[in-house]
């Protein structure tokens, strides 16, 4: 029997999620006249999911997690190594999250240009010439998309309170 590993933690998180969803099925309204209650199918799925997750948990404890593929393995150890390994991914998620949070104020056009520009700057090289190029790419790509969607496909994109570019 090996100790807890990445798979063990994943299985435990899944089991907690299953428990939460099971609890939530008790809050599904029962109409009383339906042939198959609204909670029956989700419960059946949750039973299957829980059973297989339990097998997954036992297997992870018995045989241990397989070693990660070489290119997937974080280079350094600890939280710093992990952060460095997933830096680009975290940058993208954070920027996309900020883009969504600021969407009501900045709108799709300004928010989109800033999102692409910030992504390019943080993911790519940061030489002055590159910065200019990134600015041009962000403006051209998002501006082009905005024009196509607004005037070509007649979609009303979020205008944003800042400039109300709808």
């Amino acid at each position, binding site marked *: 029997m090996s100790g807890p590993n990445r798979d063990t933690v994943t299985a435990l998180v899944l089991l907690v999620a299953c428990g939460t969803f099971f609890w939530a099925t008790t809050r599904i309204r029962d109409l009383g006249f339906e*042939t198959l209650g609204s909670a029956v199918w*989700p419960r059946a799925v949750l039973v299957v999911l829980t059973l297989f997750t339990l097998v997954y948990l036992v297997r992870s404890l018995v045989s241990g997690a397989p070693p990660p593929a070489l290119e997937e393995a974080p280079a350094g150890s600890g939280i710093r190594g992990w952060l460095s390994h997933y830096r680009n991914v975290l940058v993208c*998620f954070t920027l996309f999250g900020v883009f969504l949070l600021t969407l009501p104020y900045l709108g799709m056009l300004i928010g989109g240009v800033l999102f692409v520009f910030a992504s390019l700057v943080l993911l790519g090289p940061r030489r002055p010439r590159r910065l200019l190029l990134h600015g041009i790419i962000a403006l051209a790509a998002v501006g082009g998309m905005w024009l196509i969607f607004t005037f070509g496909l007649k979609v009303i994109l979020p205008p944003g309170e800042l400039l109300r570019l709808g």
Partner: protein
Amino acid sequence: MLLENVQLAFGAVFDPYTLVLMVLGVGAGLLAGAIPGFTIAMAIVLTLPFTFGMDPVRGLATMISVFVGGLSGGLMAGILTGIPGTPSSVATTFDGFPMARSGRPGLALGIGVWSSFSGGIISAILLMTLAPRLARIGLEFGPWDYFALVLFALTITASLAGNTLLKGVIAGALGVLVATIGEDEINGVARFDFGIDALKQGFAFLPVLVGLFAFSQLLSDVRDRVKATRAIADTGDFVVRIEHRNAIREVVTYWGVVLRSALLGVFTGLLPGAGSSVSNILAYDQAKKTSRRPEKFGSGVPEGIVAPESSNNATEGGSLMTMMALGIPGDVVTAIMLGALLIHDVVPSPSFIGDEPVLAYSIFLSFFLANFIMLGLQAICLRAFVLVTRLRMYILAAIILAYCAFGIFTLNNVVFDLWTLFIFGILGFTMKTLGFPLAPMILGVVLGDIAELNLSRAFAISSDLTHFVLRPWSLFFLLLAAFSTGFPLYQRDRQRRRWTRGYAPLMAAALSLPMFMMGGAVRPTIGTALLLWAMWTAWRRFHAGWAIPGDDRRAGSR
């Protein structure tokens, strides 16, 4: 009737605007398929927002064009750089790249292009002739049978996840669970909303799919900081002319390989969950096993390019058949197409071809025509491909992420869909990193509702559970589901454990039972053939002591 439908579809597809869209679609697909790390499914996802405003025929024709282009585009990268453009062209690189490196890139490309074309055309013909027949069989299905079919689709998708069957099943069940969030389609009761108003409607299908698939894929592509800032592929300064005449000669020489691989591709496509990423490897393997010079495979033999390329293009005809005739998507790409059809209020089912003949035959014709357009555009796209591969992945990823946001917002004009995209992007990337296959989850999201709806219908008719095993089609699919669950174990132990010698005869014997139950003349005959084969094979293997081929040699070598 057939000719009338074809004639009407002809008018719809051969409209100048539709033709322009198809040419653009094939071109975009060729380029997208040629970019390593950029899958066909992602190309289809990106095309989707443009099709919302089109009528269904144009929208579907455009998407099918991207689809066909993408399948053929993968071979350019595979042959010229050794890096397959898409998972569908992995096997093409085994012989395509060595042939290109030995000084014949034009011939390798030509063989790839003409094999793709041949496979596509064989598949299109089968699609046009067999899809209506399959739909007629589908009309026999009751809710019990549909439920069992969905179960089979989910188990086979999970079992094709390779060594990660357990994770595949968990991912599939998670997908089905996601589909239950929101208003119950049958009773209209809200489920798992956790007090959040936006969740009462549930998650829209396409943002979930794009998040799980495209968003997570892009993040995987830029994860490596060094690779993200490098050019996508090193193509150098290729000046390649496709050797069409020599390539046609080679493809005609290996017409048997073309036909067998195309049929294998169509059959793989028919299976729910199995796509061209599986069929190209199967076809290559078959071509190698039946070749007179298997030892030459891997050094640049024409059959090594012919087999995977004719098979991967043919697979999609099979996938389209299952989607159109039964309403069950064969793979991720057809799942997206199903989503696109639903946006246009078109619901594929066994009655789809009869109810919407113009649309159905337009899909057939578009698939047919797109293969011809692909043939014409390949040479032009070869030049564009060299330019595209000079792009940096981080630039492509940033632009596409923004584009995903624009496209997803267009779907319902709701900002919540963007949050759905974001949440499922995180979930998809996390699952991928933890080794969970995403295809079972995506199919779970698509098929979950269909399963619940049919289960509910079955119970509305009768609460007798024996219907699931007494109805022949339901029993047939349940048996297939059971055997597909055991398939990964069979694959693992084949050539090593004796029990695997009984797997195929047992499966054939078991499947003969529902065939006998179906009645008529043809199906019991097939059942008899299956049973006789099973008995004959089992008898032979029993007399050989269930020995594994090669046992003697192994024993001798010891």
